[in-house]
């Protein structure tokens, strides 16, 4: 691996204020449940019990991060055209941590048409499309499933727009597992260009047959709870999650959390295997630091992509070791939530923000035997430390990478 990358051409960005931020995952709804689970080392993973009516034999023998209560959650009548497991989770996530109030406040200050919705997902509402195919009537969708705006990737963006009253540009980003990290970058550009004054970003992905049996077909799913960066790791655990953050231009007197930088890249290597030298990952981290205008040694916490597949973790650890000093505290939190795919960016950004806000840096749950191939930056034990900057890595199929830097004003 070359020891130095070419210098970044990314221009330093003006930081954006994060007025509100929330994540709902298998450990519970909202940021407090997430912080508490991180503190207690309590995993949200359970034996696969997903799929109503399925027999145990029909289910994959694996562990999942499932969000409770979605089956019985009822959307308001006006939102029923968009009803799906994924949009129900979006609705649940929007109800946490003052997110609705923050959105209403932004609409009041800027006008609904000056607020954008930019949300990420990998499979959107495809779970509803799968259900429709199990109940076809004469080869056609039964009436209860015949809702066109659910069976398309933009189901999520449109639902969030309908559910919030936001009327500005509305986009669904779908770059697999980097989706809800890239939304921060796209929002930063849109606000910078003056097309919006604020942006609701985030992402939602839910468990469905496509991802469970799809990742299984690639032999990437572990039969046990995932063990990121452990020498004996043997695959990922899938999870579902949703989360949001409200971004706007930072003011001089701000004291809160900020998005300071983003970096994006492509591996240009393979659809479902990472670049062997982690070159794409390194470019994304390099550009995120450059846009934030900071050096690598200023980062106090890095939430790793850390899926617990044999290939991802050793390559990511080597990429991190090539850029950061040994003192960096880096960890994967997939042992709490599972790999939440298109929602991983927002969930793990929220964890990075919790680390910034409270000085509680999570370890790597479920892992006990360090892989000698992974550097000293990867930590299994939690730590308390007052930090200035925190970073999040999210990498996806197609070799699609995104790194984000967060800070405190």
């Amino acid at each position: 691996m070359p020891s130095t990358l070419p210098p970044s051409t990314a221009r330093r960005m003006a930081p954006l204020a994060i007025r509100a931020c929330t994540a709902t995952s298998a450990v519970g709804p909202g940021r407090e449940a997430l912080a508490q689970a991180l503190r207690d080392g309590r995993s949200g993973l359970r034996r696969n019990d997903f799929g109503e009516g399925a027999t145990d034999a029909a289910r994959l023998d694996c562990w999942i991060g499932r969000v409770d209560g979605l089956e019985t959650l009822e959307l308001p009548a006006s939102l029923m055209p968009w009803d799906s497991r994924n949009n129900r989770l979006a609705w649940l996530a929007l109800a946490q941590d003052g997110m609705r109030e923050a959105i209403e406040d932004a609409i009041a200050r800027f006008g609904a048409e000056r607020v954008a919705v930019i949300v990420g997902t990998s499979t959107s509402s495809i779970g509803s499309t799968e259900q429709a195919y199990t109940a076809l009537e004469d080869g056609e969708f039964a009436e209860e499933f015949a809702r066109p705006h659910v069976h398309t990737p933009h189901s999520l963006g449109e639902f969030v727009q309908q559910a919030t009253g936001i009327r500005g540009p509305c986009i669904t980003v779908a770059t697999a597992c980097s989706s809800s990290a890239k939304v921060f970058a796209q929002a930063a550009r849109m606000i910078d260009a003056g097309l919006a004054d604020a942006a609701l970003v985030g992402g939602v992905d839910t468990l469905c047959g496509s991802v469970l049996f799809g990742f299984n077909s690639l032999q990437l799913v572990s039969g046990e709870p995932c063990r990121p960066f452990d020498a004996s790791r043997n695959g990922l655990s899938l999870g579902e999650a949703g989360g949001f953050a409200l971004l706007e231009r930072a003011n001089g007197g701000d004291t809160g959390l900020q998005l300071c930088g983003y970096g994006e890249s492509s591996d240009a290597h393979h659809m479902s295997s990472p670049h062997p030298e982690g070159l794409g990952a390194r470019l994304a981290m390099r550009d995120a630091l450059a846009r934030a205008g900071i050096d690598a040694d200023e980062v106090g916490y890095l939430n790793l992509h850390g899926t617990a597949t044999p290939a991802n973790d050793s390559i990511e650890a080597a990429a991190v070791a090539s850029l950061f000093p040994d003192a960096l505290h880096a960890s994967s939190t997939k042992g709490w939530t599972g790999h939440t795919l298109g929602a991983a960016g927002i969930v793990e950004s929220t964890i990075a923000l919790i680390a910034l806000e409270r000085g509680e840096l999570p370890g790597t749950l479920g892992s006990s035997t360090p892989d000698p191939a992974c550097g000293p930056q990867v930590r299994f034990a939690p730590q308390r430390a007052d930090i200035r900057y925190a970073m999040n890595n999210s990498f996806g199929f197609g070799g699609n990478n995104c790194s984000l830097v967060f800070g405190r004003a």
Partner: protein
Amino acid sequence: MSSLQARIEGIGFWTRGLPSWATAREYALNGTQPTDAPTRPSPQLLPANERRRAPETVAIALEVAMAACEAAAREPASLPSVFASTHGELSITDYMCATLATDPRALSPTKFHNSVHNAAAGYWTIGTGAMQPANAISAYTASFAQGLIEALTQLHADSDAVLLVAYDGQHAGPLAAMAPSEGLLGGALVLSRHGAGPTLHARLVPASTHPAATGALARYASANAMAPMLPLFDVLARGEGTAVLPAGAAHDLLVEVSP
């Protein structure tokens, strides 16, 4: 409302019967069509065996993207890219759902990784060796306008040039009634801050009701889900003019092209 601008350095276009920007432009201006148009794009970027097997939407995206880069005389690997598609590859969505309903453990790993919305972006970056960022978005009828906005804001931020690729394919299976889209349609633009070519200005304006587009290309491929981009390509064929593109609940994107 601020206006974004770019130079249009290169254009790529493909639909059945009009398999290049040159033939599409000829059709838009004079109504003539080639008689020997291929039924499927054959992107040279893919090895011959993959060229036949690749999903149609991947094939058309790669075809128009490469054509736009060639027209712009830009090295593809040097460009960040934005891929916009309303539905992605509907034949794969149909395959996934049909297989899951009958024999989920038989799901093909290749079909699964090709099912991601950023499949075309992935094949493009792999085929060209582009390590630049690639985005993949959907915004229903606003997919093209929002893809164009994302490309223009990348230029406004810190990119010198950017590739925009928009495409949709043929509907498939029982999903067809929910996600209708006919044929195969793709368009691509290489946009730059300071390059050669016509100038494009774009700004958000209040949404209006859209009468059916009357341009030759807009009528030719009106049943494809990416048809909302066609009024701009009709303007590009003339070399100047104004197109109004749906951009969401409250907005249209007003795009002015001047030589």
